[in-house]
């Protein structure tokens, strides 16, 4: 096959009609994924899209690739099996805040710890949508829902903190409707070797509408978010005059031009440094104290599980005299009966 026959994003659309609610953020994410895959030059047959259970987990049916819609919370484990069995495949896992962080929390952190080359898109809408509106592990403290009519009394997970705490080497965040930026984030995730987590701030139009609005609304999102880019200063704001500096052990928002602050004082983002300290701080920033960090927060090279499995197999096989099952059974303590 010729090298230049790159597929169009429409080639990744299956014949199934998309059944998410009108206005759901999932539609935008589906478009972003299809665009990213086309940009990455993927072939349809080399892609496996794996999901668990939840609204977002219907995703595989809409992709003209290989796909497996599995059971609640187990997407990470099943995707791990797919990737280890065939490391040639591009394995994308679709999950939500309930699927990945509640019922599937154990598999989620362990796939990250192992650093299997999976691309995980975590749709975070801070609600259980498919079961019609119960609070999720990312719902804010005090959140009112059908199962928390008086407000929750539990602290939410911050997916970035959990990912980095589980020794995650790639974490990025984007907003569902910002397709241009989302496509870039997904491409970065696709290129990264090892587990990549992309948290998409996704809007559930029915059960948790506008939950991210305080930061995603175009009217003020530039002032309330910061798009981090590796090697670039951490500047944000409509006027591009706000920035982040480190004061003691804390991040601080400053204004360039005030109190003698110049652009040179602003932190420069290094997504590739091994140390997690600053990455954690950036991932944990919450509005209104800080702008919410978007972009690739962490992207560090580390040993990749599925690659190491292959290397170890090859190394053992090269040295061993056991080349077949028959060789094996004839090796060791064998005796003859005549």
């Amino acid at each position, binding site marked *: 096959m010729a090298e230049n026959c790159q597929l169009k994003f429409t080639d990744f659309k299956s014949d199934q009609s998309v059944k998410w609610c009108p206005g759901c953020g999932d539609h935008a994410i589906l478009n972003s994924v299809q665009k990213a895959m086309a940009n990455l030059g993927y072939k349809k*047959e080399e892609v496996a899209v794996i999901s668990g259970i939840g609204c977002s987990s219907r995703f595989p049916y809409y992709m003209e690739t290989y796909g*497996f819609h599995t059971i609640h919370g187990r997407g990470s*484990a099943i995707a791990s*099996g797919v990737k280890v*069995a065939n490391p040639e495949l591009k394995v994308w896992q679709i999950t939500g805040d309930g699927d990945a962080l509640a019922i599937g929390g154990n598999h989620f952190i362990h796939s990250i710890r192992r650093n299997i080359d999976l691309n995980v898109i975590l749709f975070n809408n801070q609600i259980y949508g498919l079961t019609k509106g119960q609070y999720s592990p990312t719902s804010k403290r005090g959140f009112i829902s059908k199962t928390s009519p008086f407000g929750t009394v539990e602290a939410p997970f911050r997916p970035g903190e959990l990912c980095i705490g589980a020794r995650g080497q790639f974490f990025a965040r984007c907003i569902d409707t910002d397709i241009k930026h989302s496509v870039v984030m997904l491409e970065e995730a696709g290129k990264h070797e090892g587990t990549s987590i992309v948290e998409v701030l996704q809007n559930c139009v029915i059960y948790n509408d506008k939950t991210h609005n305080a930061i995603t609304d175009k009217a003020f999102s530039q002032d309330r978010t910061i798009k981090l880019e590796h090697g670039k200063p951490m500047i944000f704001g409509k006027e591009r005059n706000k920035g982040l500096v480190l004061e003691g052990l804390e991040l601080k928002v400053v204004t360039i031009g005030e109190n003698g602050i110049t652009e040179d004082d602003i932190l420069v983002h290094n997504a590739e440094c091994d140390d997690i300290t600053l990455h954690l701080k950036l991932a944990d920033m919450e509005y209104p104290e800080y702008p919410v960090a978007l972009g690739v927060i962490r992207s560090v090279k580390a040993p990749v599980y599925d690659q190491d499995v292959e290397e170890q197999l090859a190394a053992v096989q090269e040295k061993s005299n056991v080349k077949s099952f028959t060789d094996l059974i004839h090796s060791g303590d064998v005796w003859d*009966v005549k």
Partner: protein
Amino acid sequence: MGKRSKVIEREEVVVRFSGDSGDGMQLTGTLFSYTSAIFGNDISTFPDYPSEIRAPQGTISGVSGFQVHFGHTEVYTPGDYCDVLVAMNPAALKANAKWMKPGGTVILDVDSCDEKNLRKAGYETNDPITESKLGGYNIVKAPITTLTKESLKDMGLDNKSILRSKNMYALGLVYWLFDRPLDHTKDYIKKKFAKKQLIVDANIKVLEDGYNYGNIIQALTPSYHINPADIKPGKYRNLSGNVAVAWGFLAAAEKSGLELFLGSYPITPATEILQELSARKDLGVKVFQAEDEIAGICTSIGASFAGDLAVTTTSGPGLALKGEAIGLAIIAELPLVVVNVQRGGPSTGLPTKTEQSDLMQALYGRNGESPAVIIAASSPTNCFDYAFYAAKIAVEHMTPVILLTDGFLANGTQPWRLPDMNEWPEIQVPRAKVEDKDWHPYKRDLEKLSRYWAVPGVEGLEHRIGGLEKDEHTGAVSHDALNHQRMVELREGKVQKIADYIPELELVGEEDADVLVVGWGGTFGHLFTAVDELAQEGHKFALAHFNYIKPLPRNTYEVLKRYKKIVVCELNLGQFADYLRMQFPDIDTLRFNKVQGQPFTVIELKEHFKTLLED
């Protein structure tokens, strides 16, 4: 070699090595069984160890045992009662005294019988022999600890290392008792401690001194003579049930041309399968030690979706955790083998003990109508055969298969005649074909009712499957009522069709027997021996032992209906008897059940069977 004063001729003998869990009894027993096998005896072994790694020293809960049954004739069980007991301390004596055959031989390390150890073992007097009612037995009171110290006093070893060699002294003495050569054990010691010459020399010296001690005491001690068995010529090795399962999968991978993938989480008594396959990177096995039981099976399901021969291994509580995922493999119609090495339950139960109480869980322990194939192995070595056939059925019929073994089979060993793999069948992989224009994910082989396997990476077969019900004709998600019923029936029908591909039930014994004994899985050795011995005593018994449980062999009803009196024997409260009742409501069966974490004994089976002849 001196002339022996008294030699007991025997067809078969059971020896039990017993001591503290740190005394090295498992190794001692293993080495003895190898030597017996190489000598040409048929053997069967079983370890009996506590679930604690190092239970309090000197107590009964810390006793670790290893039993070897070997004979001039074929042996099918590790034996119920022992002819020879090696007891390294009073606790070992106390724990095993009730398992002695009348008139047997006890080798006791008398050095261990101090006041403190006697009390720890629960003896009230300072005469454990009388207290355990072993007065009429051959008691060899050997000061093994003193003799070992004496043997090694000039070798410059520290006290701890000296005491650790006690087991080799005892082993040497047992070799004398059975007139067996020391060569194999010496070779083992040389290999094992290749880099520690001092340890090699010390162990070999102790072994020889133990043997020579027999010559010294021979006037007081009878020895045993057991001729080699008439065994089919060939190459042999000793194989445990767990390793046999692992190897069955290796053979199946080779015969199918598929890569073998195991996703698993350690659990007693199944862990050795995981360990064995982890060591088989030389044969390209991918082993994924998962974070939990659920991830164990789910990684395997992922690997199966990606085209591997995928297996997962567990024991009862783990099977419970895997239930939902088995349902996924059933509706997605992916090949998968789930091994359940049964142990005593419920909950954590008796983790190191054997039981057959997961049959109903294997058959029905899932939501929805979720049929899986159920196969049960019935001897340590045929765990190889049934693991192979479980994999063959899973792949050729695109279905999950649950393979049941148990703690007794898993840890037991038997000599295994090395197979010629050319004589084993190929495994045909039912691949979907790109040229097939009508292909869809749920298109079926009309003969088997199974779908075809379309593996990611192949251009033109891109498709989506999952846990939602599928349309029979397109493979797309469907909530249609009638379609669901058809799909449920198709999945059940596919499993039932497998009866056309498995062997018929074979009957052991006479067709016109007065009583038909029915068993399944790991009880075969005991049931067979009981029925065989009764036949030799002139009683008319037959045995129908099941390895295929779902589906049952085609001739099951035909066999069962021939008999007026049927007794179903199992290590649970009657699960297989209930299952047969569901299948064949007009067949009445009696039941003989035991749920003690222990196998049947041949003696109790024979006693019970004889009572059935009376009424």
